[in-house]
């Protein structure tokens, strides 16, 4: 799956979609494929202040626990509650139904620390 051009990416394999002051965050197709079958996602609580690139949760596959980092800082507005009953949505649709959480951006300028789809493509290889 190609990386959607409209998104920004982190070196830790998260994507972020910025819409005004709101950012929606998920993990990339490369990340979900590397992890394998996802069975549990632990996300920050709504209202929590988080810092760009901070460790804010975990994504667990059948075999392993992986840390989850946020590509942008701000206040957590919403988490994807559907993942509690259906964590496999992250595997099936990482850029859609498998989104993880939304953040009210603290500093839109943090975008400059992120990668374009083209630049992310260069690091997302086995």
């Amino acid at each position, binding site marked *: 799956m190609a990386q959607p051009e409209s998104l920004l990416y982190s070196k830790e394999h998260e994507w972020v979609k910025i819409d005004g002051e709101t950012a929606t965050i998920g993990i990339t197709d490369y990340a979900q494929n590397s992890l*394998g*079958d996802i069975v*549990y996602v*632990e996300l920050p609580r709504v209202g929590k202040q988080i810092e760009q690139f901070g460790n804010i949760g*975990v994504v*667990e*596959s*059948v*075999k392993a*626990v992986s840390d989850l980092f946020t590509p942008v800082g701000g206040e957590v507005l919403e988490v994807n509650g559907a993942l509690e009953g259906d964590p496999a949505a992250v595997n099936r649709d990482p850029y859609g139904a498998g989104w993880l959480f939304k953040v009210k951006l603290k500093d839109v300028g943090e975008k400059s620390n992120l990668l374009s789809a083209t630049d992310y493509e260069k690091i997302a290889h086995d």
Partner: protein
Amino acid sequence: MSTSTGLRRTALYDEHGKHGARLVPFAGFEMPVQYSSILKEHDAVRHRAGLFDLSHMAQFVLEGPGVAPWAETLTINAVETMKPMQARYNIFCNAQGGAHDDTIFYRLNERWLLVVNGANAEKMWTHLNANLAEGVRLENLHGRNALIAIQGPKALAMLQPHVNVDLAGVKYYFAAEGEVYGRPAVIARTGYTGEDGFELFVFGEHAPEIWRALLRDNAGEGLEPCGLGARDVLRLEAGMPLYGHELTEAITPVQAGLQWALKTSKPEFIGRNALVEQLHRDDYPRIAGLIMKGRAPAREGYAVYFEGKPVGEIRSGSMAPSVGGQNIATALVPKAAATEGATLEVDIRGTRHEATVVPLPFYKRPK
């Protein structure tokens, strides 16, 4: 075969690559942890059948008139009572009763096959040779012979057309010497998944053609190559111990709940005194089966609490598709905490999550 990484490759290495396997170091070999998906492979074994490369496990051939009496002195289960072509689970212990390795003996025509865990191959080879007796000859086939397992409810039907043995006549934990696709094989009705199935001991040079033929001839029936990831979930659901987890040099077979394999009627074997004493005292920490109440998986090494106090740790844990998708685990905990129905707590990243003690196994196949 070995590589610059120092890892060995089984005879089926090239086949794994063709199926897109993700390879990991395991017991000194590059082994497939998964092909398509651990959950899909698990599903294949529970409902159709899966094909496993287990060639990392070590095969030792034991020969000579002294094998059975000699093996009795090194193991906790009975050996001399085994019938021809019978297989039997057995454990080698240290003097303190801890497990050196858990193994399967196969009594073949004129010789015995002993299958030991890949990770324990060198340790066991040393142990056997250090304790060798008159009238016993050992040969180490580790890395030369291959082991292919076909496991699942359709395994018998898939394998039958390609062997010269009536598989229905091979009872559970028995074996036959015959041919698979015209190649010599020991065909054993054993496995490590909780399903019916067979394990095929074949020459390494014949393994790739047998592997390819089985997949080709059974693709329509849903046979899938399966990795060690699926195997670990399958064995945990079936309540089977994994060496290094539920059994170690420090965790005895009695603690692991394997009393059924312990024959205290045998007069003498390494570890006997310690195991008999442990059995009589009945005050030892033991392996308990846990079902987590929440959705967070318990993982190996997580601390376990009982009545507010830390009492032990998780030894294995996984999401269990055949246990309603719940998270299951084993933990080594004191007797009081191992009581069926007891509520324990597991520390997951600083938060305690409730778990209930249940009897093992978690899963039994439908009859």
